[in-house]
Every structure is written in C-alpha cells, then in structure tokens.
C-alpha cells in the first residue's frame, strides 16, 4: 500500500479542503486502501508558496494551490483572473475547458500532472460605503493582492494597496485600506462584518485552486490505482464546482444575516468596470502570447 502526503494551504472549514478530504477518502475506498492520502491542511506541512515546487521536486507527491499564483511563471496561469473574461459559473467552466489543455501541457513540462481544479466563488467588491458608480472608486484604497487586482485598481483611478491577509481587519479598522476584492466565501469565513459594511456582487473573476501530483509518483502506481485516482479526481472536480456554487449562495446569505449590505453592480459601475476588463484582456493577451491566443479562440468557439 502506498501513502501520499498532500499539503494544502487552506483551513479545514474551507469547502476546498472539505472537498479534498472527500477526494482522499474516495481514493482509498476505490483502491481498497492501496493508496491513502494524508491531507495536511492549513499549510501545516508546506507553505503555500512552496507547494508547487515541492511537488515538482518530489518532496511530496501531491498538493493543492491557487492557480493564479503561478502567473509570474506564465501568464496562462492567471487566465481565470482577467476581469469579466468569465464572470459566472457557466462561463468559468467554458473558460476552464478552453484553457485546460494548455495549462496541463505547461505543467507537464515540469513533470506535474494536473488532477482537477475547483473554483472559488466569484470575486466581488467589499467596502465601507456603497459603490454605485466608478467615480465612487476614485481615490479609494483598494487591496491589491495580485496583478489583476493591482491593474484594475489603477484603471479605475483607485490606489492599489498591499495588505497581507492577516492584517486585513486591522487595516480596515485603521483606514489603511477602504475596499478589497475577494469572494463572498472568504468574507464570510473571515467575518468581514466586523470591519466593513458593503458587499457588491460584481463577479469580477472566478479563480481556481488546482490539485496536482508529481508525474513520477503517479507513474509508480499500478494502472488500476492510477485509474481510480483519475476517476476520483473527476468526481471531485464535479463535486467541487457544485460545492462552490452552493457556497456562493450560502456565503452571501451569511453576509446578509450579519448585516452586510449586499448589492448587485449598477449598470454604470458594471459598464465602466467592463471597459477596464477589456483593456486587461488585451494586456493579458500580450503577456500570454500564442498560448493565450489559442485559449481565447477556443473559449470564443464554445
């Protein structure tokens, strides 16, 4: 029997971790205990930044990470963080189908096999005041945590501000930041109502987490076990996408129940943001080159 360690960055209550634990149980059931996966949540074994490299180097056979973290390596990894390229689950699924092959190939160059990817709920805008128009964003200090959020803030004349995750509550309550882009799930998990009042369900983009394995470790498994892992992965992906959609609904409800003003984007705000989104799609294409072109063509064809 083989035993795999699988480091994941997020806490036990995040639906991604719940899904991955279910995947691990599924694998050991399908293989009759021939392969067991020990999930180490919370970055307790390996920090988020080191997970991909640790899998590539065979320090651990498998792991989970957010895909757009690899954007500095190759722009195709943050195709899911281009504003409004895909802003609902159907579009996100279509984009994932269109980009899967290129991303899988790119990872294969590093001897990494991509098992499955599960989206976070769509990113929205949290703030301490109502946002009706793009002029409301002017001079607002918006938390920038990746290229997309930084660039989008610049395009709407806001001030991109870097705040590390643990510092978010203090930063809001002391006025170092006025708004942030994240999912309803993260807002509900971190009890955003303690420090802010409004959530705009803008559906900017839908980033994904991916579960990867070291190709060599995978090839050492017997063909039956390999197939069982792939089947379990397929099931986990399906389950994960459903969980994510359910999570969006329940998290928004939690936000409402705790007194956060939840609103849909106004026509004015939407169209202004979409303009910025178009600019960013072009910029992304320049960075992603031929691979990016291929993804977008395939996406448009769907």
């Amino acid at each position, binding site marked *: 029997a083989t035993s795999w360690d699988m480091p994941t960055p997020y806490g036990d209550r995040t639906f991604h971790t719940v899904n991955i634990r279910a995947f691990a149980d599924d694998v050991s059931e399908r293989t009759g205990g021939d392969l067991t996966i020990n999930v180490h949540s919370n*970055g307790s074994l390996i920090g988020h930044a*080191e997970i991909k490299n640790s899998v590539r180097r065979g320090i651990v056979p498998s792991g989970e990470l957010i895909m757009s973290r690899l954007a500095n390596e190759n722009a195709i990894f943050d195709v899911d963080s281009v504003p409004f390229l895909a802003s609902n689950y159907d579009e996100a699924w279509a984009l994932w189908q269109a980009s899967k092959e290129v991303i899988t190939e790119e990872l294969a160059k590093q001897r990494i096999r991509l098992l499955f990817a599960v989206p976070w709920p769509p990113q929205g805008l949290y703030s301490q005041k109502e946002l009706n128009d793009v002029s409301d964003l002017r001079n607002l200090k918006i938390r920038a945590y990746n290229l997309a959020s930084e660039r989008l803030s610049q395009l709407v004349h806001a001030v991109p501000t870097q705040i590390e995750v643990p510092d978010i509550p*203090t930063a809001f309550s002391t006025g170092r930041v006025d708004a942030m882009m994240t999912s309803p799930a993260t807002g509900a998990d971190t009890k955003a109502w303690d420090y802010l009042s409004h959530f705009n369900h803008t559906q900017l983009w839908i980033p994904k987490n991916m579960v990867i394995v070291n190709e060599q470790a995978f090839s050492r498994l017997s063909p039956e076990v390999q197939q069982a892992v792939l089947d379990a992965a397929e099931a986990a992906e399906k389950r994960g996408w459903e969980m994510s959609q359910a999570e969006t609904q329940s998290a928004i409800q939690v936000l409402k129940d705790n007194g956060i003003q939840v609103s849909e984007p106004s026509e004015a705000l939407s169209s202004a943001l979409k303009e910025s989104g178009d600019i960013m799609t072009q910029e992304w294409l320049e960075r992603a080159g031929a691979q990016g072109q291929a993804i977008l063509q395939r996406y448009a064809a769907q």
Partner: protein
Amino acid sequence: MLLMMIVLTLALFIFLGSGVWVAFSLLALGWIGISQFTSIPVGDMMASDIWSASYSWELTALPMFIWMGEILFRSRLAEDMFTGLAPWMQRIPGRLLHTNVVGCGLFAAVSGSSAATCATMGKMTLPELTRRGYDERLIIGTLAGSATLGLLIPPSIILIVFAVATDQSIARLFMAGVFPGLMLISLFAAYLVYWSWRYPDRVPAADAEIPFKEKLYRSRRLIPMMALIIGVIGSIYGGLASPTEAAAVGVVLSLILAYTNGALTWQSFSDATLGAVKTSCMIAFILAGASFLTAAMGFTQIPSQLAAWIATYDLSPFMLLAVLTLFFIIMGCFLDGISVVVLTTSIMLPMVEAAGIDLIWFGIYLVIVVEMSQITPPVGFNLFVLQGLTGKNILQIAYAALPFFFLMLLGVILITLFPQIVTFLPEAMSNR
C-alpha cells in the same frame, strides 16, 4: 510510534545536554525524524523548508524590534525612564520591578511576538535593574514571564494563526485577548508585591523621600519614552503602519530620540546594528531549525496522532481541558507555540467543538498555554533570548521563570472558571 517518540526525545536530550547549539539540535532531530521514519527526501526538504521559513513578511518585525532595543540600550533612554519612574514607585512593594511587567504589557501592545518583547525590554531593563541592586533571579523571571504577554495582548501573530486556521474573527480574538492580558499583568504584579513583602531584605533600600515638586520635575525624563510608545502605538491605530511596519517606525523614532539625546554616534549606531544582527541571526536560525522540526513532526504525524488518541476517550469538557493542558505543556517543551497550534488544530477542533467549548475562548486558552511553552526548557524562545542577554544557563533562567509558569497556569484555571473574562469584550462587540 512509541519507538519514534522515545528515539526523538532521547536524541534531543543527548544533543542539547552535550552542548550542541540549539538550532543544530533541532535540525538534527528533524533530520532523524524524516530520514528514519518517513520516505521523504530529507535534504531537499530541509533546504526548501528553511528557505520558506526565512522570508516571511511578518517575521521582519522581529529584527526591527531587536534593533530598536539595541539603540535604546545605547542611548540614555532606559536610564532616564527609571530615574523618572523611581520616585513614584517608592511605596509600592517591588518598586521598579513592576516596570518589567508594565513595560512588557505596553510593549506587547506594539509587538506580536514574545521573543521580540523579551529582547527589546530585556536589553533596556536588565542592566538598569541589576545595577540598582534588585534580585537578579526575580528580574530574569519577571522578564521571561511578562514578555510572553506579547502573544496575548493584540496584535498577536499566534492569534492570527489560530484565527486563520479555524475561521474565527481576528478582530474578535484580539478583543478577547485584552482582559486576560490585563489579568495576567495583575497576577504578575501581585506576585511581585507578595515576594517583596515576604523577602524585604532582598529588595534594595528605598531612596530618600523627595518632595512632590521634585518628583514631578524628575518625571520630565519620562517624556521621550512616552513619546516613543505613543508614536509606535499611534502609528498603528492612526492608520499609518501595519503592526509589522510599526517595528520600523520604532527603530526610526528611537534613532531620533537617541540623536536628540546626543547619544547617537556612528560608533553607537554601528554597534547597535551589529548587535541586532547577532541576536536576530541567533533567533532566526533557531526558528529555521524549529520550522524543520515542525515539518518532521507533520510528516511523522506524532502530534496529530497524540491528539487523535486523546479524542478517542470522549472526555467531559473539564477533563478534556485538563488533559489538553497537560498535552500542550508537554508538546510546548519541545516545539514552539505556533507549531503546536498548526500541527494539532485539524484534529483538536472537532473534539473541542463536540465538547461545546467556544472557539474564541479556546483560542485565548491556547495562547496562554502556548505562552507557558515560551519559558519551559529545553525549547523555549524567551529562555534563549535571555540566555543571549545574560549569558546565564537556560535551566537557571527556566528556574527563575518557574513562578510565572505557575501564575499562567493559575490564569488558565481562572479563565476556565470565569469564561466571561475572555468572552465579555467580543460579545459586547457583536451586540454593538
């Protein structure tokens, strides 16, 4: 697993006992754990883990605070502070020793770590208090104990780690830490009063009583110190700096103060900076070793299996807390606090929730128990810092800190009997 635990414990005692440097002992232990009991490529894991443990943003506050302490130590600031305070403390039993407790409490409101609090305060108060003839053991003990407040009084790195791991509100946990922090300060102060009353001959003689006007006049020397504390805390709550960045603000402010004092020369600046390099390298390397050992514990799953074993007993809430306290104290002897929290929460949480224990309360409980681990040998970061400062042996320092260990245990019992101490503020906050 029993074999693994025995081997590792024995190895640790052999390495440390034979005088191997603490950081190397931890590295060696991690190496044995991974290479002998798992199939992980140990060398690559070691380099990768030490790399990832060494570049965290939150950690940058540590060398900054240490540097600040070194600068203040070389200016007249610390001496001035005591001269200004002394006339007011004449009648309180324990007199200037209380500055250790209160000073650490104040500094804890700036720094999120116990080692930084210990290094900064110790650099300032140790030489002054020793010179004034206070009992050395008590000085060291007070410092070791009070510096742990850095973890409980917000901001706190470990409360953030707990909040992130368990999806609790960081703001609420910070609120919840306030009263228990004040409770511990009071317990420590009360102990000093008791001790001075019990051993009056071991407290230096009081200075001659001086008139009130003179007292006030001497207090002007407190102004720079107050300005520093207000400046650093103010930069956080005024929205100018994050708690991590506040450490750098502290360095700049102390440089300005030292300059206005005339104590800032090129020599003193370079001495202070190299002094900070020495202390922070020492701590950083031990942290790296501790991180690797933590990874080894994660791969071998000793802590999580022990926690799972406790879960099988289905204990009543009070029994569960008693057993967990014992478990954390033992784990805390060998691992640093954050590692214990990270390695065990997955298993611990369902069991704690099933027992009907409030998670905010549990977070504070956990931090106090982890505070205790900072002063238990063989692996206790405050002990290492104080050994660096005084040159005394860590067992001597641990012995000096023992009363404070028991005071914190008393604190744990108090918050168990009166959970309102913890829950009052966060509940008031949610009823807002």
